[in-house]
């Protein structure tokens, strides 16, 4: 439940204000380790488009550059029907399908990577889709932005997981996963959702009249939800962590990190007036 993370944030903020806590730049008393491990960032959706898998490597905690790219890998996606989609390296570390393809709900996709003599695999089944019914908005006086409200029927039966992205005038607002909202249907199963604020926690968008906002709703696998929850927990760690720091569990074999998953997408657009 995303709200729980928020509660902890609120508590942390209040304690910080009240108890004059302070923060300062420091260095960690750690032994850095420069092991290079493969990191996978890949998703296949039911949108017809070139599907992308990014490969990079882990690095020193104190490095000041972009993560090193994993180049020269052999990357293939296959489905449970025997279809095979080889990917090519368009720019260093970015592997894409040569043609537009669309994943199919219910199919299981297997990613196979051959990199520097090692083979890594991951599997994901594309979950069922839930449609966005409609969108609306309200003005938030305090944050001076419009809030986007989502209306949708959550399908009957527990086990659906969602992730939302926002774009304004065709440009992605939720540029990294720390800004995306993720939630499972544990507490809302089968309900009609009457105005969920999909930009609930990130408040810096400044959505104004005239903006065209598109909400992309991804139905994601449980594995992906756990991964994102783990990432968010790490990302927010520090002040009031809800769990001890730990490596985010990946679904890639052979010790690689990251996530490959299949997700079904549904979209709606609204013009703020």
């Amino acid at each position: 439940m995303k709200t729980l993370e928020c509660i902890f944030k609120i508590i942390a903020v209040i304690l910080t204000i009240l108890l004059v806590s302070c923060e300062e730049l420091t260095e960690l008393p750690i032994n850095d380790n420069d092991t290079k491990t493969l990191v996978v960032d890949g998703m296949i959706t039911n949108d017809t488009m070139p599907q992308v898998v990014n490969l990079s490597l882990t690095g020193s905690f104190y490095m000041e550059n972009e993560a090193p790219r994993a180049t020269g890998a052999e990357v293939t996606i296959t489905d449970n029907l025997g279809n095979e989609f080889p990917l090519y390296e368009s720019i260093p570390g970015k592997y894409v399908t040569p043609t537009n393809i669309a994943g199919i709900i219910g199919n299981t996709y297997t990613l196979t990577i051959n990199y520097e003599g090692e083979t890594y695999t991951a599997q994901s089944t594309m979950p069922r889709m839930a449609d966005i019914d409609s969108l609306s908005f309200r003005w938030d006086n305090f944050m001076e932005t419009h809030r986007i409200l989502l209306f949708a029927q959550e399908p009957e039966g527990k086990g659906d997981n969602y992730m939302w992205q926002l774009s304004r005038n065709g440009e992605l607002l939720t540029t990294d996963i720390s800004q995306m909202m993720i939630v499972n249907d544990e507490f809302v199963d089968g309900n009609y959702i009457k105005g969920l604020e999909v930009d609930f926690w990130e408040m810096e968008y400044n959505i104004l009249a005239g903006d065209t906002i598109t909400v992309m709703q991804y139905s994601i696998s449980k594995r992906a939800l756990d991964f994102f929850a783990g990432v968010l927990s790490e990302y927010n760690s520090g002040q009031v962590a809800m769990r001890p720091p730990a490596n985010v569990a990946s679904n890639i074999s052979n010790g690689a990190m990251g996530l490959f998953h299949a997700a079904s997408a549904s979209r709606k657009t609204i013009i703020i007036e």
Partner: protein
Amino acid sequence: MQTIITRLSFLIFCLCSFALMAETQTGINGHIKDAATGEDLIGATIYISETGTGTTTNVYGYYSLAIEPGKYNIRASFMGYETKHFELNIVSTHVLNIELESAYKQLGEITITGDRPDEHVKQVRMSSNNLSMETVKSLPAFMGETDVMKSLMLLPGVSSGGEGSSGIFVRGGNVDQNLVQLDEATVYNVSHLMGFFSVFNADAIKDVQIYKGGMPANYGGRLSSVVDLRMKDGNSRKFAATGGIGSISSRLTVEGPLQKNVSSFILSGRRTYADLFLLLASDSLIRNNQLFFYDLNTKANYRFSDKDRVFFSGYFGRDLLRVNEEFKMGWGNETATVRWNHIFNSRIFSNFTLVYSNFDYLLGFNYGVNSFDWISDIRDYTGKADFTFYLNSQNTIKFGAQSQYHQFNPGQVKGKGSNSGINDFSLSRQNALEHALYTSNEQKLGDALTLEYGVRYSLFQSIGESSSYAFNENYDVTDTLHFGKGEIYHTDHGLEPRLALVYSLEGNQSIKASYNRTRQYLQQTNVSTAGTPLDVWFPASPNVKAQKADQWAAGYFRNFLNNTLESSVEVYYKDMKNQLDFRDGANILLNPLMEADLRVGDAWAYGVEFMFNKTKGDFTGWFSYTWSKAWQQIDGINQGEKYPAAFDRPHDISLVLSYAINPRLNISANWVYQTGKPVTLPVGRYEYGGVVIPVYANRNGSRMPDYHRLDLSATWQTRKRPERSWQGSWNFSIYNAYYRKNTFSYSFRQNEANQHQTDVYKLYLFGIVPSVTYNFSF
């Protein structure tokens, strides 16, 4: 096993009958009280010069001592009180009720003549400390709030969980392995305001005793320690009030006789007003926030006869945090205790207790479709009977029984308002019975050796109506089990042997040793780095085995300078089984399958503790140094390799000094030093979806910088006017006097200019925190 239990029950039954029929031997017995207030004195000493024997009063101020008929010189003494001498010709059983005068006779004129000459060395009890409320009150306190739990952290073997935390960690035991009892009621959460203050109002407390080892058989249910707090009974002589106005809270205590020398009451309240300052804010969004706590202690007692006395005590405390209309969070403890002291005959003191204890929290979220209330609570009903049988001058036998009914409501969510998209949801409630039988004997063997041996048998039963899950070796659910109302679906039990001995040597020195086994059937999910009240208590179950510990300790005790300087060295080893920790990435909140995220293993701890305590004179205080290690090894965590517990603090120093410059001015200081807390820090990083994610190696593989801090305080008593009873004093204190920026936690953020660079920030909670408190009494 069954036969042992049957024998134990039989033994206790025999003891009862034997005790009740015992021929009354000659001897003395009675109560020892404070002459001015009528408060019972706990641990006061009665000593017979001719025989060299003595005893101390129990928690109700009662003592009983068997002696042959004859003429004796009897001495009664207590720390901070004038010693009294009696000459008695004892022919039968003699009731000798004693009142001792406080040595603080007139304002500030400290003429301490009372003493407890060599209790420290002679008593069989080891690994145990008693803190007088005078001491607790004289210590520099954070924001001027006298804090019992924080004072305990200054003792050897007791460490804090971190800045601004009320939980204690005793000899490598976790925070939930301490039994904290207020008038025999379990207090499940000792934190106010996320742990910055503890729930105990020092004005209402009479006595604090901590047992870190050599646990007496009458205590059980937790592995590592018992903190036994006793509330004041209330002044039975005259009406009196004490109070204080502080930087963060105000306190007021009123007490007095309901019927002089027969019944008395005390009522003590405290409330913080930090949030009242928020009202001054012009911004309504700030003004509408609330953050406060209050607590109320109340107690009354009635003496029916010399043999019967009844006590009623209650505690009620609550924290509330509210952010506008959107978010609220509240939590608190409630306890109620009824006790009946009955003296069957001069040899048999008994006490019967009924206790109710409750801890609950509530979270309310009011945000459109995300509107819900979330509640959780734990509730106990307890019945106890405890007997002390003063058999003769060599043997003091204790025995008793207790039964507890626990109710757990681990979490319940209710959607709120018509717009809420949240379904009602609740985790399965659980109920359990916890019983115990115990007996022990403190036996003097000659002049030098005293033994205390005992055994406790505890039994835990999970009872329906409830449900539980069966898991396979991969922690996947294989079955959901439902249990009908009243059905006992899980039983766990065992014997807990307890043993302690003291061997006195010439020249005010002694050697002590102890062994104890303890068993624990309830535990808490302590995971968050801050002490939030959301840590839920959960019971042993088909999936969670009872925790078990064996502790061995030995020590050397010696008093110097005519018993004004007490010193001790103790070593211990503690072996703990069925210890729990959560797997990486565990989901703890509102997770019906939480048990599947638990991993079980072993923990062990060892250490050596040094203590020097100067108890008398203008200059008092103590120095304690502890060296210790606390390890855990749990399959499925840290690749199954041993790792230091999160509260492993090898070096721990406390220095407490107090100096009476003149009768009206007292200054004190304390300095603490602890090895930095173990912490899991990243050894590398990677990027995913636009964010940088740390890579970790070993659990608790690094340490934060060492923690140290100096606090100062001065107490100045205003001049008392003879015609008025009003007495005031000012307390000035400084927390963290040399501005040590102790690391509370680390956080990582991307550098604004270079998104690929990770900056590390350390959070420290306090700079220098000065505070002023005005205390009064009349």
